């Protein structure tokens, strides 16, 4: 199983029936493919839809129905559409249960940087700042390191997305939860030791005596 699949399968277990969920583009989007049977969630697209689903067949593409990246998608029966003000009212107003977002860096306090690398990559924040500010739970889906360098740091070097801490960080090596005492190492991936995680983590971790192994959605 590849690293990104581990992350997506683990995050899928965080979704509960009845949740309204927004998935960021890239790796977070793949979480939708692993929602366990019997768990019924609705996916929000910030371009104005609740009830997004993958396009069942390329021939069914509708020029007026896309995901936020502009790719054509489908909608489940019972879906609804709305304008950008309502879409971000849902996000900022605390109506969105979970958002899953990618990350460039996360620090010891759970603060996320995921929208720019000064002088190199300035794509803009899009909806990321609103999502981190307003969603009830913010889950970061990211690789533990970038080109061998830790992405989980004592302090972010890149511009922050929000001053609000995220709820959970899931990498291909570990599950981490920001707490008042620091970043708690909640789980390690199958075949990964606590030492494997600390060796590639710059932030100080709170490590319980017993760290369970990640469960993964089938």
């Amino acid at each position, binding site marked *: 199983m590849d690293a990104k699949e581990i992350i997506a399968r683990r995050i899928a277990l965080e979704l509960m029936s009845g949740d309204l969920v927004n998935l960021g583009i890239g790796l977070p989007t793949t979480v939708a493919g692993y929602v366990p049977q019997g768990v019924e969630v609705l996916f929000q697209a910030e371009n104005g839809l609740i009830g997004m689903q993958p396009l069942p067949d390329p021939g069914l593409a509708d020029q007026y*129905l896309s995901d936020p990246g502009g790719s054509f998608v489908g909608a489940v029966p019972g879906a609804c*559409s709305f304008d950008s003000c309502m879409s971000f009212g849902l996000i900022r107003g605390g109506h969105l249960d979970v958002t899953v977002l990618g990350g460039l860096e996360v620090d010891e306090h759970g603060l996320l940087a995921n929208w720019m690398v000064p002088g190199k990559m300035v794509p803009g924040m899009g909806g990321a*700042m609103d999502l981190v500010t307003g969603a009830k739970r913010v889950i970061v889906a990211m690789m533990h390191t970038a080109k061998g360098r830790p992405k989980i740091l004592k302090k972010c070097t890149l511009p922050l997305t929000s001053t609000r801490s995220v709820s959970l960080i899931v990498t291909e090596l570990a599950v981490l939860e920001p707490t008042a005492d620091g970043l708690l190492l909640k789980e390690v991936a199958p075949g990964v030791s606590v030492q494997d995680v600390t060796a590639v983590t710059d932030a100080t971790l709170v490590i319980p005596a017993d760290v369970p192994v990640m469960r993964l959605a089938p």
Partner: protein
Amino acid sequence: MHKGIALSAAVEKIPDGSSLMIGGFMGIGSPHRLIGELVRQGRKNLTVIANDTARPGFGIGRLIDAKLVRRLVVSHIGTNPETQRQMIAGEITVDLVPQGTLAERIRAAGYGLGGVLTPTGVGTMAAEGAQLIEVAGRQFLLALPIAADFALIGAHRADYLGNLSYALTARNFNPVMAMAAATVVAEAAEIVPVGVMPPDDVITPGSIVDHLVEREIVNGR
């Protein structure tokens, strides 16, 4: 009042240097005919307020390709490498605004508000230059209204009173932008006789639409 106007005549009303709100999200719901005509007529030094610049060759990306835009107010440009290139080369000024804040700033202008207070961006680069206001112990940024000379709206259905409805995710910024510009120009995929659109289906009232681009029948379509 009949709001119909020919495509070329609609764009002739837009002077060089105008500020334009352009609906659409990654080009979905953008007024593609108006965009094409702006390129054909070669309008210059435009300020464009929109969610994004789509991608090269599509939607607002066509205005970027033709170098008609001097300043952009958008939430992201990550999908358009040409916009990024022009920004890095100093050919275009880009103001990046969080997407929800952008929608609310436009709404503030259109709804007659002096601004809105948002928690989004507090303590980040998005807070630079913005006034911080505390309400009930919580910090907010004062997001000021954004208005424009013209709003270019992509609707799904219209009548010649200018009543507009939208389809699925093509609605996005269109209805709020139609409230926030001095002159509102709409195009629609289909135009129906007045009275056909049920009042409950109208999202943008015709009263605020100044011009509706007429259909052109080409090759029987």
